[in-house]
């Protein structure tokens, strides 16, 4: 019998063949029971265990307390464990939607907290695969207490490890709150939803007829609300995006950065770089072309691509270092800063700061969007968050003004005053307290009022202001920008600065 040849450490030394056979079959039965009722339901193709296994390197997943159970055949309601991605350790929590729709009971909450505690203590990133209807009503306040404990650990983890949430099914209440306390949330289109209360309760409370997609679909959350940061088409794509995201991040605060060898920028983009930015400051262009002409050619991951698209937030590499890139995008809403753009950028800068990722900022900003709508949204408060994020971030900060930077928006985009380590301005750029048109209207109010042709005079004065006041040499002579450079010099300048700023950290 093959069983005789692989003795179990749990079998008593004097156990005979029959008794040992009993122990072995009991364990086999227990393991089978754990997953007896976990067939995928609804749009799901994979079980909670399969999802965890697919996320990590092949064969690396190990479940923690796999026999933990809230009742016969139920398991704990969650598959928690650890594995590796590209060889780096990772903790995974995967809701078991086949058991009570993934509802979080006391035992499930305890299992999740155990995994969170492990991740925080060891300094490993944690990925939450969310597919849960929220707190489990049958467990009453014990479920609520458990959910609160998960939130508290989410918040503790923010200071220590990256946390990523995947939304692979309808997630209500507590299952929607926990992702909001993590760093990045990825939703599968037409499969994942997040809401505090589902369609039935919404209907009962407000009379509103809304589908789960209307209340919490990926389109709403990645485009409008900003609650989630990436929309993907399938679970496989969600796992791929998670692994790509992790490839830019250290396993924990203070951990080694994942340094690659330096790769030159895309040669075509380098060739086009000097002519990318239209000289006329009112003409829009695609800032991605500038980013491509400066950073290492290779993988990028843009977060929140469809929310507040007037600012770009993405991970990329410069001279092999993983960096966070913030850039105004003139191609979307003229590249303005508004409340949503400020919150998006602040969140990204804060994340980079927490995990020591250098922040590279490309500036071409017409200003903060004025008006009653934006003031009513609290643009002052939201803009202030961006200032705070830059000031508090102690990782290397490099800023280049590629065309224009006016007023408060100039400061907000990582200016020297907010602690940028090195600042450059391209030769044709404009840096000023306000745009030439607005500035001359204030400075020459009386002359313009008395002029026979005020628009002609205003244009003349604006042209003089642009050349004499707004050109970057004034800022460079004052030491407010470190140097004025040509576009094609940007990569070398940034690379040299980054090497200086990260010396001794490899």
């Amino acid at each position, binding site marked *: 019998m093959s069983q005789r040849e692989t003795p179990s450490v749990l079998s008593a030394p004097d156990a005979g063949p029959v008794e040992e056979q009993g122990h072995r079959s009991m364990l086999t039965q227990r393991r089978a029971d754990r997953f007896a009722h976990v067939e995928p339901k609804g749009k799901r193709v994979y079980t909670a265990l399969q999802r965890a296994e697919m996320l990590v390197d092949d064969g690396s997943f190990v479940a923690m307390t796999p026999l933990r159970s809230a009742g016969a055949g139920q398991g704990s309601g969650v598959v928690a464990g650890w594995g590796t991605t590209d060889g780096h350790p990772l903790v995974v929590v995967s809701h078991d939607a086949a058991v009570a729709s993934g509802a979080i009971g006391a035992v499930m909450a305890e299992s999740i907290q155990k995994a969170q505690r492990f991740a925080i203590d060891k300094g490993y990133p944690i990925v939450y695969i969310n597919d849960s209807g929220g707190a489990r009503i049958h467990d009453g306040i014990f479920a609520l207490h458990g959910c609160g404990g998960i939130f508290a650990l989410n918040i503790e983890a923010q200071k220590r490890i990256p946390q990523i949430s995947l939304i692979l099914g309808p997630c209500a209440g507590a299952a929607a709150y926990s992702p909001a306390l993590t760093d990045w949330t990825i939703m599968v289109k037409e499969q994942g939803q997040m809401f505090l209360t589902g369609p039935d309760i919404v209907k009962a409370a407000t009379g509103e007829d809304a589908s789960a997609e209307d209340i919490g679909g990926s389109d709403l959350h990645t485009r409008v609300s900003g609650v989630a940061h990436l929309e993907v088409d399938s679970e496989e794509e969600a796992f791929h995006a998670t692994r790509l995201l992790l490839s830019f991040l250290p396993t924990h605060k203070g951990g080694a950065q994942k340094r690659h060898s330096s790769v030159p920028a895309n040669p075509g983009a380098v060739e086009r770089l000097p002519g990318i930015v239209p000289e006329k*400051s*009112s*003409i*829009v262009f695609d800032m991605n072309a500038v980013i491509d002409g400066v950073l290492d050619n290779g993988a990028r991951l843009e977060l929140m691509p469809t929310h507040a698209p007037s600012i770009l937030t993405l991970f990329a590499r410069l001279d092999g270092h993983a960096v966070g890139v913030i850039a105004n995008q*003139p191609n*979307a*809403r*003229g*590249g*303005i800063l508004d409340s949503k753009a400020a919150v998006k950028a602040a969140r990204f800068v804060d994340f980079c700061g927490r995990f020591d990722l250098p922040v590279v900022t490309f500036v071409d900003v*017409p*200003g903060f*969007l004025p*008006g009653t*709508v934006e003031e009513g949204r609290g643009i002052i408060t939201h803009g202030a968050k961006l200032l705070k994020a830059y000031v508090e971030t102690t990782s290397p900060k490099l800023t280049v003004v590629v065309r224009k930077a006016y007023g408060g928006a100039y400061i907000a985009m990582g200016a020297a005053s907010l602690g940028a380590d090195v600042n450059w301005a391209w030769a044709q750029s404009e840096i000023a307290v306000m*745009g030439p*048109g607005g500035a001359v209207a204030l400075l020459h109010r009386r002359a313009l009022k008395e002029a026979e042709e005020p628009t002609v005079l205003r244009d003349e004065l604006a042209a003089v202001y642009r050349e004499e006041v707004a050109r970057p040499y004034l800022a460079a002579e004052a030491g407010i920008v470190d140097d004025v450079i040509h576009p094609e010099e940007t990569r070398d300048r940034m690379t040299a600065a980054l090497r200086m700023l990260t010396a001794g950290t490899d």
Partner: protein
Amino acid sequence: MFAARAEIVANVWKIVAREGDQVGAGDVLAILETMKMEIPVYAEAPGFVSKILVEVGQIVQEGDPLIEIDETASA
């Protein structure tokens, strides 16, 4: 039928398209002006310009319809 909309509060600076024009996806229909930036308004799908809903100089709010395109008429 769909309408090209304003992506931001702006002043209508130029209207490029005319009623009855055949347009392709990505064609510029109008140019808005806000914060001294020229913001192009593109056709998201091919069709015929069925109605121009705004005038040059008019202030439009984010989401306002600007130009109606009849995509069925292009077949």
